[in-house]
């Protein structure tokens, strides 16, 4: 019988690989520097394997594309807390990838306990990579007024200025809260790698040959401490750090990117005459030597929204993420101020190489002729992909949001991919082909037109923009 197992990339990969090997799976091309998304299991020919971003695995298993999957319990609960009828069965705690999720705040915000959060007199902004769990937490705590900021990462950077609380991983192995100066208010979930099954597969299909291979671990249920999200913890993790909470008046707040845009951003700022310090991996608050500039590091994907909602005045991100934001929120006050030239990628439409089409019109013809019943569109850029599918009249289509490694979805689990590419080589390597270029993207400086027009900010912001503009001209 054909069985399908979804495996995680990223943080859980190394230990999952060890687990598979010790459990008797003869797995090749998983990890070891292999860029394949389709490992092979030599001793189980009926088993097909696919590698996904961990967060995508519960969804792929729930919709029945895979019989079994391995991922963190945190991502399983993030799905099931919002969609309790998801067809998922939690089978087994695999004993690794342990970390706790907690709701935390900065002691400087005046919230240092759960009761203080509950009684906080004002709007509570909750930033998290786990927006559904954060919303469920807020509702169970009966917070009167709250806003959830879903973020791609770096949630711990948000308090106290940009969020009152965060729902984050708080285990020492994951960096803990110490470095970010947060106080854990409540333990929400003990997470770890777990084995999950599609409910229908579990009820109808014999998956026991696979299960027998996995060594006996604890059942998942054993480690569900505090899953209701309201178990208060002692304040033993109370490490207030001395981040001065500045008066907002006249301070221009700038967000800088982490990840691969970091290096060219440092070079740009230095060329513009800024003295850049403490802008390295893991550092939240770089210093660029200007006292009226408050600088923080967050994910480029999150920047347009954070600039729009007034958490920052300016940010360096990509035009791809700006466009994604403006498609979602057409009247947003975020505008591009400068195109910075670096980080050039093309946003392209991609299909599997053997699909007999070379452009979107031909793809539409396949639909019209009934060769394809519908199109499954996968992308990290949900709004851009949605707009593209609509504009090209690829109806009926269904959007599959993804959190990375989206090439893995084609051809089995999606038909069309909207993705960025520098050279097109990765796409070609995965047996895919580009059928359209949507637009070109590069790094840009964005700003909130409303907040930058405030009289105590306008001159300062202008001088920063001018310095950067000048440096761009010098390069050219």
């Amino acid at each position, binding site marked *: 019988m054909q069985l399908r197992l979804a495996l995680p990339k990223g943080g859980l990969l190394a230990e999952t690989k060890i687990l598979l090997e010790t459990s008797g799976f003869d797995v090749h091309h998983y990890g070891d520097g292999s860029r394949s998304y389709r490992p092979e299991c030599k001793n189980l020919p009926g088993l097909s394997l696919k590698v996904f971003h961990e967060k995508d695995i519960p969804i792929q298993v729930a919709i029945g594309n895979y019989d079994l999957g391995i991922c963190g319990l945190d991502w399983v609960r993030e799905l099931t807390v919002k969609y*309790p*009828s998801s067809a998922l069965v939690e089978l087994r705690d695999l004993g690794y990838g342990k970390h706790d999720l907690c709701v935390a705040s900065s002691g400087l915000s005046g919230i240092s306990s759960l009761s203080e959060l509950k009684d906080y007199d004002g709007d509570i*902004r909750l930033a998290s990579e786990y927006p559904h769990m954060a919303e*469920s937490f*807020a*509702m*169970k705590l*009966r*917070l*009167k*007024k*709250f*806003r*959830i*900021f879903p973020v791609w990462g770096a949630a711990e950077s948000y308090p106290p200025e940009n969020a009152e609380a965060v729902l984050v991983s708080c285990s020492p192995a994951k960096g803990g809260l110490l470095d970010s100066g947060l106080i854990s208010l409540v333990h929400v979930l003990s997470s770890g790698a777990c084995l999950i099954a599609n409910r229908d597969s579990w009820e109808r299909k014999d998956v026991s040959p696979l299960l027998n291979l996995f060594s006996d671990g604890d059942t998942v249920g054993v480690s569900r401490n505090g899953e209701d999200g*309201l178990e208060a913890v002692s304040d033993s993790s109370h490490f207030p750090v001395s981040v001065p909470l500045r008066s907002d008046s006249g301070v221009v707040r700038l967000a800088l990117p982490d990840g691969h845009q970091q290096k060219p951003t440092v070079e740009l700022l230095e060329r513009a005459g800024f003295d850049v310090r403490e802008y390295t991996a893991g550092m939240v608050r770089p210093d660029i030597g200007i006292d009226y500039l408050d600088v923080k590091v967050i994910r480029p994907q999150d920047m347009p*929204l954070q600039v*729009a*909602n*007034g958490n920052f005045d300016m940010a360096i991100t990509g035009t791809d993420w700006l466009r994604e*934001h403006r498609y*979602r*929120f*057409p*009247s*947003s006050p975020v505008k591009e101020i400068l195109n910075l030239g670096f980080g050039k990628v093309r946003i392209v439409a991609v299909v599997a190489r053997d699909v007999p089409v070379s452009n979107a019109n031909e793809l539409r013809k396949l*639909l*019209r*002729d*009934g060769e394809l019943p519908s199109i499954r569109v996968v992308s990290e850029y949900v709004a851009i992909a949605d707009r593209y599918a609509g504009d090209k009249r690829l109806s*009926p289509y269904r959007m599959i949001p993804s959190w990375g490694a989206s090439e893995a979805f084609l051809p089995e689990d999606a038909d069309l991919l909207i993705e960025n590419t520098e050279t097109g080589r990765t796409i070609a390597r995965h047996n895919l082909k580009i059928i359209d270029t949507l637009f070109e993207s590069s790094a840009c400086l964005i700003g909130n037109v409303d907040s930058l027009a405030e009289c105590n900010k306008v001159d300062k912001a202008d001088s920063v923009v001018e310095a950067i503009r000048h440096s761009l001209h010098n390069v050219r």
Partner: protein
Amino acid sequence: MVMDVRKCKGTHDLLPEDMVRFRRIEGAFNSCCSRWGYREVRTPLIEYLHLFTSVGTLTPDMLSRVYSFLDWDGWSGERVVLRPEGTIPVARLYVDNLGTGGPERLFYVGNTFIFDETGEKSRERWQCGAELIGGSNPEADAELVLLAADVLKRLKCGTVQMKLSHAGIVRGLIEAIGLGQGDEIEVLDRVLNGDIGVLREVADKEPQLHDLLSHLLDGRGKSASFLKNVKAAVLDVLPGIEASMNNFIRIAELLDVTGCDYEINLSSARGFEYYTGFIFQLYIGERKVGSGGRYDALIPLVGGGDIPACGFALYMGQLMEVMDNGGFDKAPESRVLLRCADDTVRGYKACFDVAMLLRQRGYVAEFDLGDMELSRYGWLILLSDSKTGATFVLIDCDSGKELGLGSLDEVFEMMEKAKCS
């Protein structure tokens, strides 16, 4: 390729015969409310989620099933919802627009949305609601019961059973049981979600509470006297519920003198998220067709002054199930089909003119588009009939009897005569 177009899971189409019943309920409700001095309002379908979280009265279970989303300008993270219920938006409307403190009698007809994962219940529900804002007297509570009864009587949809309870007494009971604060919220949430049995579970652990709970939850009464008896039996153990008890007795006395039949059943209280006092539920057979009660804390929670209020809602989906069309659809004899033998523009002009005159006289007039089902009509009128040469031929669709007539006045005369006979 044929497109596969289906309606969303958990939703219902209202077909023409459903709409007849729908409008009949709405009509009876509007007319009763207007005569009782209530004024119609309508709130937007979308509201901020904050409105419902800030009152803190909806249970997390209810809130987690609300349809919420970020609007096109929702970059601030402020979510909007499809209204999950009708009273809180009306409370907001009152505070925003009318909150001068004087009594306001308001009513509305609107739909509400709540997710139901089984797909068995409808995710969109229509309700007729009335709210009496600014009246704290038991007379106000009694008025709402009598208004609801008046509407149901007018709809002639069967015998209505009324179950009465009191949130003040149930809350007093939970407090008196003396759970820890966390447990108390959990017990209250379970009671609010309809699980009043949780109180019995608690009582089983404390045998001394057993008798008390059986008096309060298991007893059924038919008049104010029953409540006086219960009060005498439990007041020494539960002195905290005296005010609620007296309030309940007074409302029951008012209903007694108006001849209103009811059953007092304290354990019938469920889903009373924001109710603080008297609660009533209306049943036809096994079907719950409406409920209401007093919610004195709501207007202050929405940001208005310390203004008491009470209200009720009738569930249109449930009511439609127990109603027939009741002949409210236009009777076939008033429906006329027009067929014109002269297919020139002039011929149709004549047809349009006849149709207009028929409509002015209260008939439903339709043009024949071919293949019309004659049994749906009382009359067929042929214009410029070439076969008989008559200007008008009037055909009784029921008997098939034909009559050639020379003028429209003669046609009307024949139709009116038939109506009278």
